[in-house]
């Protein structure tokens, strides 16, 4: 079990009188890829906030490398090795693409990848001097993934990485992640079934704040109950 | 002997006076007066600063303009009450012009708004001085004398001020929560582009809301005119405290405004009696900073959301 990176045990959270999440378990091992899917309002983003320590669970525990990270300031969490890509692409619009990546590298004490390599990884080599605010939507998403890579994370959390992407961009993103799979662990929250299908990984399905199913994606896709509440039938 | 030492000793001596009820009631009424003024000035700010996110440093000048309206009406022979009716109108006119000429072009540039409105505040002050001459303007209260309240006698005009302030607050609450215009305002504040998309004339709504805030500040100016100095530069005395009221109470809710006014006004009145007033003022402002640190969303957060 020494290769367990992130462990959520019996996690629940309640907002006021509302039980938003209940009894969730998730174990992410080193260099493992997994996805979380579920209908809107199922609590995916809340769960992600618990995993990154932004929220503190009202029951259960979330441990990263054995530490309780709930309530730590964001930058401390980043320095522990958790990188997060937000749902709305959030790059620094008034800095150039290159400076965006530089700023990202400066966030950690020991960046490894040079900026040039990062640029190539996210296919923005030709746009290094462009202001990030002028990039197309999909390119911003990629730049953001590049920034997340720059801090040399142990764990990369992606919140709807393909939101607003065209189908072909979605697939390209999936391929990019598969290429990086061996380097660190990835947890992705996603709607786009094509994307999850392309990743074809361990998948957790949430519904109304609880685990509905979990397992490899092809099992999930075939599951009757998942089809009922979420995927729908054709 | 240091006079301050005496002030301390005397204050302590006075606390053991027998007529506690008198003391309590008067303190309460003093606090209420201050709270009422802060609330009225803050109400306009709560709309422009709290809801529309416009940092209007010329807000104090709406108060000034209101006070000058009362002075002007009295000086040409009108009664105080006529002047008080003119005060919000004067505030509204200035607010409307300001919104039209400057603010509406700067909704997306908050720092520029700060600069421009400060500039406007200087222009208004100097303009008033050039128009009405140097120095303080006389305003006579509508009623002299005091009112007997069983436990104590209290200046009658202050009681009127408190009453008008409370009625105004009630009116604003009803306007925002019960009328369709109130619904429009809330809509525009939440999502301007979408409000425009459902057919609301957002420019007009903003302009009216801003003007309305200026009118209330003008009314506040009219109300304080018989009580405090009337001078082109008087507005700045109210500005910082009013901002604090809004920030401490929490942006975007009337409840927050009331909470903020009670916090700043109440604390000032009570501390004023206990310690040196200068120190009291510093403590209130520092307490406000600490309060903002501890409750960044305001004392009254959550109530409106």
């Amino acid at each position, binding site marked *: 079990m020494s290769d367990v990176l992130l462990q959520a045990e019996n996690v629940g959270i309640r907002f006021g009188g509302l039980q938003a999440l209940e009894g969730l378990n998730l174990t992410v091992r080193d260099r493992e890829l997994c996805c979380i899917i579920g209908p809107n309002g199922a609590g995916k983003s809340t769960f992600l906030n618990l995993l990154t320590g932004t929220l503190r669970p009202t029951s259960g525990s979330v441990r990263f490398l054995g530490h309780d990270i709930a309530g730590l300031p*964001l*930058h401390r*969490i*980043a*320095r522990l090795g958790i*990188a997060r890509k937000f749902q709305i692409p*959030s*790059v*620094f*619009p*008034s*800095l*150039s693409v290159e*400076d*965006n990546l*530089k*700023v*990202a590298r*400066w*966030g*950690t004490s020991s960046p490894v990848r040079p900026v040039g390599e990062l640029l190539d990884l996210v296919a923005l080599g030709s746009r290094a001097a462009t202001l990030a605010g002028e990039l197309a939507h999909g390119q911003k998403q990629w730049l953001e993934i590049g920034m997340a890579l720059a*801090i040399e994370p142990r764990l990369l959390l992606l919140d709807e990485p393909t939101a607003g992407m065209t189908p072909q961009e979605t697939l390209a993103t999936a391929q990019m992640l598969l290429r990086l799979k061996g380097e660190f662990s990835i947890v992705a929250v996603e709607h786009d079934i094509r994307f999850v299908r392309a990743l074809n990984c361990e998948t957790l399905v949430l519904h109304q704040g609880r685990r509905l199913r979990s397992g490899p994606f092809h099992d999930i896709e075939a599951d009757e109950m998942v089809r009922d509440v979420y995927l729908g039938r054709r | 002997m240091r006079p301050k030492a005496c002030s301390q000793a005397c204050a302590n001596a006075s606390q053991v006076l027998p007529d506690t009820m008198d003391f309590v009631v008067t303190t309460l009424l003093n606090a209420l007066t201050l709270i009422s003024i802060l609330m009225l000035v803050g109400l306009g700010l709560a709309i422009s*600063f709290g809801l529309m*996110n416009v*940092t209007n440093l010329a807000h104090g000048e709406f108060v000034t303009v209101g006070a000058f309206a009362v002075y002007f009406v009295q000086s040409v022979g009108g009664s105080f009450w006529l002047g008080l009716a003119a005060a919000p109108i004067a505030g509204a006119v200035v607010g409307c012009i300001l919104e039209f000429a*400057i603010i509406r*072009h700067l909704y997306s540039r*908050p*720092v*520029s708004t*700060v*600069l*421009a409105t*400060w*500039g*406007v*505040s*200087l*222009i208004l*002050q*100097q*303009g008033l*001085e*050039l128009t009405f001459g140097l120095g303080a303007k006389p305003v006579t209260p509508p009623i002299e004398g005091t009112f007997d309240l069983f436990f104590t006698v209290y200046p009658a005009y202050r009681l009127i001020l408190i009453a008008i302030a409370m009625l105004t607050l009630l009116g604003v609450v009803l306007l925002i929560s019960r009328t369709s215009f109130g619904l429009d305002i809330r809509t525009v504040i939440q999502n301007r582009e979408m409000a425009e998309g459902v057919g609301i004339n957002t420019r007009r709504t903003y302009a009216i809301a801003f003007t309305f805030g200026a009118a209330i500040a003008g009314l506040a100016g009219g109300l304080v005119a018989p009580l405090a100095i009337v001078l082109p530069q008087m507005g*700045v005395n109210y500005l*910082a405290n009013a*901002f*604090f009221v809004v*920030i401490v109470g929490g942006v975007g809710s009337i409840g927050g405004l009331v909470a903020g006014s009670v916090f700043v006004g109440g604390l000032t009145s009570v501390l004023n009696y206990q310690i040196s007033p*200068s120190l009291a*003022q*510093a403590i209130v*402002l*520092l307490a*406000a*900073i*600490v309060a*903002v*640190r501890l409750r*960044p969303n305001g004392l009254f957060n959550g109530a409106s959301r």
Partner: protein
Amino acid sequence: MIARDRNWLLIFAVCAALAVVYPFIADGYQLTVIRDALIFGLFAASLDFFWGRTGILCFGHAAFFGIGGYIMALVTLNDAIPLGSLLGILGAIAGAAFVAAIIGYFLFFGGIRGSYFTIVTLAMGVICQQAAVSWSSVTGGDSGLIGIPPIAFDLGEIHVDLSQDLPSYIFVASIVAVVVLVLWSLSRGRWGAVLTAIQDNEVRAAALGHNAPLRLLVTFVLSAAIAGLAGALYVCMAGLVAPDLSGLLLSTEVIVWVAVGGRGTLLGPVLGAIAIQRAQQTISSFNPSLWPLLLGCVFVVIVFVLPDGILSIYARLKSLFKGRRQAQ
């Protein structure tokens, strides 16, 4: 980006050359006028380093100027303290930085940004001035402390004595030049890029491992420290310190200088400070009541006509010129 750097250095060099030539053409009085204006220019640059880099407006910056001034006064007026001027300057810097650290801690770590910060610092300025007036046993009350000696100290072999006009001018001009250069190199390098990132999206910057509140705090403290330095220099040149040197009016004026000179350019605010003060004194001698009116109009006009300040005129003319050439 590189072209912009070259422009800046060019303008800086021109200004430096003018500053070197000036003593040869000016008399002692004119030197003192520019010297004092330069000190306020330093003050403006200190505000610009914070406001221009973080986009957060401090409306009580004169508080730090005043704190620096009062500490300098108290140290140099106390005969028991050796090396008075030198310790005074250090104390002024440290004192202003300390107060900024306390206030900044509450504000930045409390999540206060934008207009909130502006308003809270506005109140801070009011408190500072009131404290300077009321706490008369230390501050001398509303009339302030007088008789502050000119800067003079021996440091090993170096003998500094600024009681004469020319040495004091040279001293001040060099300090301003060095500080502006240092701040400029800071703000275009790594420090500046991260601050720009924080200004763009603070949460994102934090999620990349940057301690955003700490960065803002350090920037604020640095800015306040330089304001304190400017205050210390000024009171020595003026010979006294008074409460309104930490007041709202000066806080407002410094904002105008920065806005007129060009926010984020560091050099612009220095030029803005000199230009506006000269204009103010000249206009005031000519017609006293015109100045406040004019000042108000300057605020409004700057916002609409020259949002990037006077320094941007050069860049604008250049691009206009370029555009014309391309059009031909």
